[in-house]
């Protein structure tokens, strides 16, 4: 199974929607709440080149925002 990392903030509704989407489809993920850890925040900006959450890292494929189609495409054949 591919490793999924989600960068989130506490009250971000799209982060919640992304997590729910993955759970509904049976995928596990590692959540990195950027409010809790500044290093994760820098890591997210470095990986995505931007300041919006959520950011989803699927083994190097970076997806910005809640985008079920892109997530499913990145997880294809998984």
């Amino acid at each position, binding site marked *: 199974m591919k490793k999924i990392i989600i960068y989130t*903030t*506490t*009250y*971000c*509704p*799209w*982060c*919640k929607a992304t997590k729910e989407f993955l759970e509904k489809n049976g995928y596990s993920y590692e959540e990195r709440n*950027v*409010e809790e850890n*500044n290093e994760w*925040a820098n890591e*997210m*900006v470095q990986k995505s*080149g*931007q*300041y*919006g*959450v959520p950011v989803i890292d699927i083994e190097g494929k970076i997806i*910005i925002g809640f985008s079920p189609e892109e997530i499913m495409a990145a997880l294809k054949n998984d």
Partner: protein
Amino acid sequence: MTEIYDSIIIGASAGGISAAIYLKRQNLNFLMIAKDIGGEMVLSGIVENYPGFPETNGVELTEKFKEHLKKYQVEPVNDKVIALEKNNSVFTVKTEKNSYQAKTVIVATGSTPKKLNVPGEEKLYHRGVSYCYVCDLPLFKNKIVAIVGGGNSANEAGIMGSKICQKVYVITKNPEMKGDKFLIEELKSKPNVEIINNALTQEIYGDEFVKGLKYLDKNTNEIKDLKVDGVFIHIGLKPNSDFIPDNWQVKNEYGEIIVNELCQTKIPGLFAAGDVTNIPHKQIGIAVGQGIIAALQVSKYLNSNKWILKI
């Protein structure tokens, strides 16, 4: 023959959800169409003025509303409405994927954030420019940000920013901040917040990320420059009513749907509730109340035989 629903609710936030609960309890055959659940309410941040919930937030409240829909087995159709028509007392609701018919329609589509339409805003979106302080302010820890806006969202964004950022500028085109006095006082009490009145934002600049913004100081007529890392735009909302034909003449100059105290429009069978209406106070509690009024009025309309299919 195509099924004709008693009602179609467009939108699944505060107004749409309360309408759905009441239509269900009247045992009416209805459909709910929405592109998401919660709409702008989800982005409300901390909510402390909704009775029964001394302190909650947009996400939690939306979850509670979803639970309530689930209890009544209401499953919104996930689609976007693009057009509304009416022929012989029957409404046709056209979506991106389908088309549905109903005797009545409740529009509860809410509103979306307005843009400033200044240079740099689009280019630097998500590169320091954001329309969601609740989502993105935490990324600006110990940085300098500008909040553009003069109402409650800007007040709340400024207060949240004061706890996270090194410095927060709140920029309003008005002579003073508007909204809840309680919030304005709190904002003013923050030592790292500076409110700039009578300021018109002209440009947001930066290469890869935001580096600053320029505004026109209306007091001196000078262009001034602020070095900031982030710009949060909270200048009000635009009603989501584009799919309603202009020739029905049910919208005011701002695009809000004009309703009376019973949430009726001048088109028989067409009702509206919540932020999309011309009621000046955009509040979750008000949207909930209007949704209830609209649903009860739908029931009354159907029972009064005003709905007659003319073939």
